[in-house]
């Protein structure tokens, strides 16, 4: 089983929503589409599902061309950001609805709905209507409807975005388990890098209608192929600074910080990408660099401290574990872990491995 987009392109009027895209999703995988709002995640999913036709290109499923085949004939299910259930059906009938339409016999329906409801912890509320449920339960019902069909392709379009923080955390942990033993391809769209990391599987980073990178989630995270991919996959946003390399010494252009590297890179100007959690108030790694700056904003969130500061003409973001209270305007010293630096050349390609 595989889903393949071949040279897919989507234009609406003069506007290009999806630039020419090639993507192959393999059997039994969870694939995260990661990108900001309007990056084209929903459009891409609708094309995958057959709800929308690509302007150019083809969609292949199981080595068969399914471009233009209607969604009803494709055994697909989808879960939306909004909690979409039939308003006048109770939970049981809602979950059973896709089976009833395809004419599965009633004992079989009972059996399958029971199992899925158990899995999603909906058993005690099978007789309730959607408007009597909490948001989390409504979304569980929608998920159950998607799972009960045994679809070949399950599309989840930001399913957790409208949930309260706690419910979101809870459901996010359960999600990967739900799909573990299923014979299907799951596509999960989200704007949150942390979702992708938690869910694992594969990740495709999307930027303005283009897939920047597709691969195993951790590989995409650790080895972004380009500055864009790294930026999409970083929250809080990645720090980017210009550097100069001379011999085996690199230095920030905007400040007097330099370090050694072992690389065959040509001398010249590069960009360095530093994830916020690699700039901390304490030393980490064996090649820690000191950087000083003036505190702009200091925020505490849970057990983490987010410190925005200026150095040279740049604004930097640092993320440290633990509570580190800083005063606004204060001069402070922070430490960068230079082992984790990502280097990009003038075309924004990653050059760490050169």
């Amino acid at each position, binding site marked *: 089983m595989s889903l393949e987009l071949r040279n897919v392109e989507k234009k609406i009027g003069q506007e290009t929503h999806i630039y020419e895209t090639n993507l192959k999703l393999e059997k039994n995988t969870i694939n995260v589409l990661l990108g900001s709002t309007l990056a084209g995640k929903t459009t891409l999913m*609708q094309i995958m*599902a057959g*709800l929308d036709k690509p302007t150019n290109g083809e969609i292949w499923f199981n080595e068969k061309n399914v471009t233009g085949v209607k*969604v*009803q004939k494709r055994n*697909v*299910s*989808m879960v*939306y*950001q*909004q909690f*979409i259930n*039939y*308003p*006048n*059906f109770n939970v049981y009938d809602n979950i059973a*609805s*896709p089976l009833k*339409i*395809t004419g599965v016999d009633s004992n079989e329906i009972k059996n399958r709905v029971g199992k899925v409801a158990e899995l999603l912890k909906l058993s005690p509320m099978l007789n309730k*209507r959607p*408007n*009597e449920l909490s948001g989390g339960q409504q979304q569980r019902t929608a998920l159950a409807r998607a799972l009960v069909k045994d679809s070949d392709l399950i599309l989840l379009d930001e399913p957790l975005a409208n949930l309260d923080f706690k419910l979101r955390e809870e459901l996010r942990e359960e999600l990967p388990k739900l799909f573990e033993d299923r014979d299907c391809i799951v596509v999960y769209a989200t704007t949150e890098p942390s979702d992708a990391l938690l869910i694992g599987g594969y990740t495709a980073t999307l930027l303005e209608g283009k897939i920047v990178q597709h691969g195993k989630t951790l590989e995409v995270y650790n080895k972004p192929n380009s500055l864009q991919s790294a930026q999409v996959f970083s929250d809080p946003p990645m720090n980017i600074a210009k550097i100069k390399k001379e011999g085996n010494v690199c230095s920030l252009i905007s400040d007097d910080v330099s370090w050694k590297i072992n690389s065959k890179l040509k001398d010249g100007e590069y960009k360095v990408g530093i994830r916020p959690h690699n700039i901390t108030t304490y030393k980490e790694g064996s090649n820690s660099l000191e950087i000083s700056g003036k505190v702009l904003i200091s925020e505490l969130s849970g057990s983490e401290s987010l410190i925005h500061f200026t150095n040279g003409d740049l604004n930097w973001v640092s993320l440290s574990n633990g509570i580190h209270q800083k005063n606004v305007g204060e001069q402070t010293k922070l430490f960068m872990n230079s082992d984790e630096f990502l280097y990009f050349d003038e075309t924004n390609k990653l050059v760490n491995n050169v």
Partner: protein
Amino acid sequence: MNKTVNQKAWLFVIPVFVLVAFNAIIPLMTVVNYAFQETFGNNVFMWEGTRWFKQILLSDRFHAALGRQILFTLIILFIQIPLGIFIALTMPKEGIGVSVCLVLMSMPLLIPWNVVGAMWNIFALPDIGFLGHSLNALGFDYNFTQQSGDAWFTTVLMDVWHWTSLVVLLSYAGLRSIQPAYYQAAEIDGASRWSVFRHIELPKMKKVLTIAILLRFMDSFMIYTEPFVLTGGGPGNATAFLSIDLVKMALGQFDLGPAAAMSLIYFFIVLTVCWVFYNLMMKNEGQS
């Protein structure tokens, strides 16, 4: 905590009290006053107790008028609600068609009621009216001023023309508020057009439809101006609905006592039906 006493707030409430007193309570109390007394003018009143109420409730004339009223209201509800929903479903969802349709739909609602009556009166005249003349030319024996069936047909048609738009506009608003994802989800399920209507659109329109039915019930149950101008309640008493009959009694015959009693009974019927209906419709409505 010490509460400071400040009665100034009453100053802000008084204007509303005065307004409501003058436009609702005092007129209503006048009617109540008439309903329990007999008067021959000159400000001389005699106490009659519940006599007028008994007289009205037992009179054939009231029963007939009430029967006509209920029949009329049922007919127009059964036509206007489904027709209104149907038109709303077929209206365009985007483009300039939307504004064109909305303007066209609002038009009948903007015409004063007596003008609607006059328009339809002329439109339906059997000799010179477009509708009346055409029907006769087609071989139908149509004359709304003489045949009660034709009078009913014309009155119902006029009301449908005048008020279906209201149902259309409300239903359309209800339909537009349904998120597109619902339709997509149904499409993925492979649901038929009918189930989409029955299980998504209709439940989602429930609230606006409740309002539409309530408004149309109240308006049609109290209809006066249009049939008054169109048929004057005739031929005979064929289209004399409750309010037309009431005005005949109060101003035509100057039976102020019975007319006042009838007004109160009329008022309570409308109030009770609306209350019962609203509660039934909203009974299973949890917090959305």
